[in-house]
Structures are given as C-alpha cells and as structure tokens.
C-alpha cells in the first residue's frame, strides 16, 4: 500500500481522482481512497503501478477511436516511410469523409490509394497528386469523388512544423505569382514578396518509424524519415507504426529524432 500525503514532493498529475501519475518515477498508481485532514488531501494508492506505456496491442486498437470527418496526417514520400499497417487498419475500421494530408496520394492500390479507392477520403492536401503510379487518385478526382488542395512540398512541411509548434501562420516566398497564391494575403519583407500560409494540424497522425520505446521516442530509417517527425508533432493523437520496440534507454538520447512527447501510441508492425 502506498500512501502519499505530501504531494508537493512529487511532480504529479491526478486524473479524475482515479489515477495518480508520478512524472519523477514515471509510474502510475490507481487511487483507492481519498481522505481529507484539515487542509491536506491524503491519497491512498492501490498496489498496481502502471508504467507509462504507449505500446498498443494492435494497429486496430490504435485506430479504433478515429471518427468520420477527422483530419489525418500520413507520413511518407512515395513508398518510403509509409505507415502501411495503420492505413490498412483504418480501411477496416471504416471511418469516412476524412481529410488526408500526405505528400503523395498513394502508389498503385496501396497505402492512401486504398483509402481513396474506397471513397474514404473527401479531400487530400498534397504536393504530388499526379504521377504514373497514382492513377487511383486521378480516377476519383475526375469522378469528383475527392477534393484536392495542391501545396508546394516545402510549404506542406513548414505548415506541419508550424502546426506542431504553436505558430498559426507564416509568410513565405514559395508560390508567389502562381496559382498557389490565389486568395492568400501578400506582404513584402525586406524586398521579398511573400504569401501567408496557415499551419496544418491533424486530429490524428500516422507515422512510420524504425524503432520506438514505450515512451514513444522514435528513430527512423534513412529517407523514410521525410514528413513523419513533422506529422508526429502536428497530430493531436499521433500513432507510430514501428519495426521494432526496444527497452527504455536503448535509443541513444543524442540520436532520438522524435521525442516521445509527440507520440501517443506505438504499434509494432506485424510484417517485417
């Protein structure tokens, strides 16, 4: 039995008087009873200690709360760093009218193309909608089944970084004088003409990484990194699909690319 009567000595968080999280020791206790003595509150804690553990049992479990109409950020560039198993789980889960943010609309019938083919995506925000491998998008676009917001690749990246960083909008010269600038505020800074671009935030982010630990720290594989760290930052609930889950401390702190603060759930891939 754990009894804590001096809460000030801990960095703690109490959730609905039911869970007590001690951030110093990274442990979670169930509150079994609460007693009031004068100005003090005494929390009696159950025996169970639940460590911070973001590892979900399955991709299906991790995507189960996604509602129709959600905005979802999808990592990946071409076929590199695409969270294929999360996308597959979402396809089975059935959410629709989704807004997708992704550099590409999926290759052949895989990844995002599978969601588009099944009319789950109402709108896609991307930089490279047309290529020989993205015929599924083109077909649905011609049938007016999907809307497109075309965005320069660097502007997508920066809008995501802004979205994850509390920056609501920024000015950039990319797109000035082009159709991308239509309807956007124009302003000059030190002789450079810029357009105003707004942050992108997601209700969810699907991220593909190489390794994770139970805190959600992530490292990536080569150029499979691409948009993934930015989407992890800009997603309210970010789910990482990883090849491998290692023990805490196994990822070199100097080399962690995405600190776990940006990640809510980790799913280990079932296929390697």
């Amino acid at each position, binding site marked *: 039995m754990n009894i804590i009567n001096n809460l000030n000595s801990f960095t703690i968080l109490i959730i609905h008087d039911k869970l007590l999280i001690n951030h110093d020791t990274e442990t979670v206790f169930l509150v079994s009873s609460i007693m009031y003595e004068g100005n003090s509150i005494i929390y009696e804690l159950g025996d169970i200690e639940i460590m911070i553990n973001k590892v979900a049992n399955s991709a299906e479990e991790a995507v189960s709360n996604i509602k129709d109409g959600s905005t979802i950020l999808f990592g990946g560039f071409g076929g590199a760093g695409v969270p294929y198993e999360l996308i597959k789980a979402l396809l089975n889960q059935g959410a629709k009218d989704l807004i997708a943010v992704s550099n590409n609309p999926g290759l052949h019938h895989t990844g995002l193309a599978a969601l588009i083919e099944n009319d789950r995506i109402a709108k896609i925000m991307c930089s490279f909608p047309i290529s020989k491998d993205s015929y599924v998008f083109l077909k649905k676009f011609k049938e007016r089944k999907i809307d497109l917001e075309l965005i320069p690749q660097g502007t997508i*990246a920066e809008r995501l970084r802004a979205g994850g960083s509390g920056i609501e909008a920024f000015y950039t010269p990319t797109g000035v004088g082009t159709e991308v600038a239509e309807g956007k505020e124009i302003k000059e800074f030190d002789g450079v003409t810029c357009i105003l671009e707004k942050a992108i935030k997601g209700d969810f982010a699907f991220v593909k990484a190489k390794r994770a630990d139970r805190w959600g720290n992530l490292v990536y594989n080569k150029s499979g990194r691409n948009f993934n760290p930015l989407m992890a930052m800009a997603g309210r609930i970010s789910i990482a699909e990883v090849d491998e889950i290692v023990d805490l401390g196994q990822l070199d702190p100097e080399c962690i690319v995405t600190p776990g603060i940006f990640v809510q759930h980790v799913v280990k891939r079932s296929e390697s």
Partner: protein
Amino acid sequence: MSNGLSIREQIAKRIAEDLHEGYIVNLGIGIPVMVSNFVSKEKEIIYHSEQGVLGMGSAASEEEADPDLINASKEPVTLVSGGSFSHSADSFAMTRGRHIDVAVLGGMQVSEKGDLANWKVKGAELGSIGGAMDISIGAKKLYIAMTHTTKDGQPKIVKELDYAVTALNCVDRIYTDMAVIDVTKEGLVLREVSPGYTVDDVQKATEPKLIVSLL
C-alpha cells in the same frame, strides 16, 4: 550528335562542366538527374535530394537497394560517406533558406525575365508541384535544362509565360541543345552556341531578342 550522346545527354554533359568542387547541388527529375553521370569523380560535390538526403550517392544495386533510401524520382539510391538524413522541413529549409549553391531543374517555358514554368502542361487541370516552387525560389543559382523548342518547333524561351508559373524571376541560366543563355537585368544574353548552329538559328528559335555576348 557527334559523340554518340543523345540531345538530353549533351545538355546534361554541358551543365556538368559548370558544377564546381564544393558545390551543394540539387538535381530535378528529367535531364537534370543525368548531370551527375558527367561530373568527374575527382570533384567533391554534395548532392541534396528533397525528401531528406544530403550526400546522395549513385543508383543502388539490387543488393544495396532499401525502399526507404530513394531519390526524388522514387528510385533506390545510395548515401556517400558524410551523408546525412533530415526530415522534410529541414530538407526544405536547405532549399528555401538559400543553402543550395546550384539547383538544376527541367523547364517547359522560361521568360526573358527569368520566370519559370515547369509543373503543369498548358491547359491541363492538374499537375504535380512537388518541390519545384520551393527549389526555384530558394537556390542561390537556378539552372534550367531543356530542349530549345517544343516538339512542334515552338520556342520555349518566351517573352511572357503562358504555362502555369512555378516561380517568378528565378532562373539564372538556360542550357538547351542549341545554346547557353544567361538571364540578366538587361535581358537574355547568348553565351554559347552549340556546334552545328549559328547565332541566327538560336535567335530564330527564341521569342525574345537575345543580346549576343559569347564567352
């Protein structure tokens, strides 16, 4: 062409001569990616690729290929010693933040003011921008590699673009099968005429008036 190279290879080979030791270079898809084949292996040039590779090496063999290590055309490549990976925002900070010495992109049209069109065919509803707009506004020098005219002989170097704009006032130099042309404040300056052509030939295939100042 004389040395057994195609027109596109000739253009790529000519551009390779202008890439110097120590440059950080971004090569677009099409003719530009062929440029590195003609750069002397002695020259230390660092190739940047938009999806987050600085220090991109040659094409990967089947054994070396990793689906997570690709170039901008989504083909498997290698990384050189000293190379590094970055996420897309840092990769585009390199291009948008004026850290790339030379970018070489393909072109559909270039205007006499150095405006570039290269992402959407005239009249098409859709096209892919990818990194073209970011690279065009951000490279310290922007070189365009293209054939001098369209397949039906229309000039691609024009007074005003009538294709969708990629970026304004961004092109420094144009390399074609007929010529090398600099974009300057004074106008387009003809620097080189390819073997087999005259200054007159180049002018006839170019809409704006050329200032002739051969190197």
